[in-house]
């Protein structure tokens, strides 16, 4: 008994030693910077002289909350997240179901669809920008040739189209990730269930609704959670395609603008703290929904 307790104590000491580099690094690059961001949000500091500040209470938070540009960015981010994650989930599920079947070259196809996901987002943005170019783009050329439109459409310049274009590109980039996670979920479903369903003559559509979908739900849920949190912090795609265009500005772009472009450390920190709180709230809601789902099973 005593020996076991001694061993446990020894293990705990060893664990602390092994964890020390991790904890030290995370404090330096995550916890401390986060704490400082929150701290600066209560000050009137500027980026060029961060040590020269006074406390202003919640003033920065109020200023951000009263800025219609911020709420525009919040709206853009929410629309972007909702629409693109929904499309990715449907498309991801459809492609995963297709690739789950046995066919020649399945391994190669699964590897090949990773390509859009592995590319830097900037590169994807540039490639689509080129394909969607109003004068020389392949897509417009195709549409004109087919007689769908008379003149090329300015997909990345027209204010009413640009958010849709951003969503379209994001769906292309991140669908492979969805496909992989959902495929992994599908592979966990035991074959015997399908065999049993076959024997009792359950029709295909019903097999999907009452076997595949419920059993794949945990995997789909986790995939949706990851993608949602990722989409909510989106920065690069909008920035490269449209920089500060208010029609596609995301919360992250707004916060960085205050901080870097306008050098307003206090305001930028308050904006990013708002972003943190909004995303945290959404994360809690989604995790709650997933738990609820699991509890009712």
């Amino acid at each position: 008994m005593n020996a076991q307790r001694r061993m446990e104590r020894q293990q705990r000491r060893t664990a602390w030693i092994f964890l020390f580099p991790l904890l030290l690094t995370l404090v330096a690059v995550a916890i401390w910077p986060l704490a400082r961001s929150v701290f600066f949000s209560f000050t009137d500091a500027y980026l060029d002289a961060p040590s020269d500040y006074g406390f202003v209470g919640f003033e920065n938070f109020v200023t951000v909350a009263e800025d219609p540009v911020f709420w525009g960015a919040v709206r853009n981010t929410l629309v972007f997240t909702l629409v693109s994650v929904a499309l990715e989930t449907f498309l991801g599920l459809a492609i995963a179901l297709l690739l789950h079947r046995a066919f020649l070259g399945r391994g190669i196809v699964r590897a090949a669809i990773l390509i859009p996901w592995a590319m830097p987002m900037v590169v994807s943005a540039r490639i689509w920008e080129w394909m969607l170019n109003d004068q020389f783009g392949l897509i417009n050329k195709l549409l004109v040739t087919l007689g769908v439109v008379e003149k090329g459409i300015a997909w990345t310049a027209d204010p009413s189209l640009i958010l849709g274009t951003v969503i379209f590109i994001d769906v292309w980039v991140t669908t492979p990730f969805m496909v992989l996670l959902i495929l992994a979920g599908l592979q966990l479903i035991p074959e015997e269930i399908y065999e049993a369903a076959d024997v009792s003559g359950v029709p295909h559509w019903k097999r999907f609704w009452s076997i595949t979908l419920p059993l794949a739900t945990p995997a789909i849920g986790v995939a949706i959670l990851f993608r949602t949190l990722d989409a909510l912090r989106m920065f690069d795609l909008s920035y490269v395609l449209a920089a500060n265009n208010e029609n596609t500005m995301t919360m992250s772009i707004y916060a960085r603008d205050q901080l870097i472009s306008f050098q307003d450390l206090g305001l930028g920190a308050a904006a990013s703290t708002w972003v943190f709180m909004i995303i945290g709230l959404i994360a809690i809601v989604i995790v709650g929904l997933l738990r609820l789902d699991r509890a009712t099973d």
Partner: protein
Amino acid sequence: MTASAAATRRYSNATYRTLRRLKTAGLYAGVAAVLLYMLFPYYWAIVSSTKTGQALYQFTLMPALDFSNYRQLFNNPVFMGALVNSGVVALVSTAISLVIGILAAYALGRLHFPPGRIVLIAVLMISVFPQVVVLSGMFEVIGWLGLYNRPSALIVSYLILTLPFTTWILTSFIRDLPRELEEAALVDGCSRLRILTHVLLPLMGPAIASTGLLSFILAWNEFLFALTFILTDENRTVPVAIGLLTGSSRYEYPFGQIMAASVTVTLPLLVLVLIFQRRIVAGLTSGAVKG
């Protein structure tokens, strides 16, 4: 005879064969459509990168095999410098994350350590932080370390992306290794560090390869920190170099060059992804589906 058996006899054998063939044809058509959707844009980038002048605006599907865009790109010291920066930054931050992550994963996955759960949850939470939230504080840390406008600033700041990720995946991997392996060594009085380096590490090769590769991709593709902490062109990474590339006017966009740069940046990743595809899929899903 059950009802289902009666139901399956509804059609003649010939009809069944036709139906089956149609189904197979549909499957392959679907797969072809998926491949076209996923791969064509990259193919079009390759095609466009080998065209210059008027040819760029022709819609021929075959590459023109004119490599002057690439020659220009490789003779451009700023782009080549960015390529080297990206490589060094991604490699070093991945290496650091792997070393720290392996040590931590052993403690979290194997040792009796009750606070480990809290550490794991914290690690998971940090990995979903919106990056912009730590931007101002990170700015300060970079300033204190005197790394502002240096590629090493990115090595430090990328640890917030790569470290939680490697720790999480390696922990779930170590938990799956059979415990019996170490017990003999433990009885022999081996130290924990020796067990990790001599017993577990040799078995972790595949996991380390896949985790390292994913972390490399993460660091190679990062944009926000690279845009913010680097001021001058010669210290930039390639995503930012491509992101900031613009022509002298909207209509003089050097698309051929941009496509050549895009293909060049992506090629190393694609080769790695295709070689290690099985491991990548395993790495991506092990953390997510099990956890």
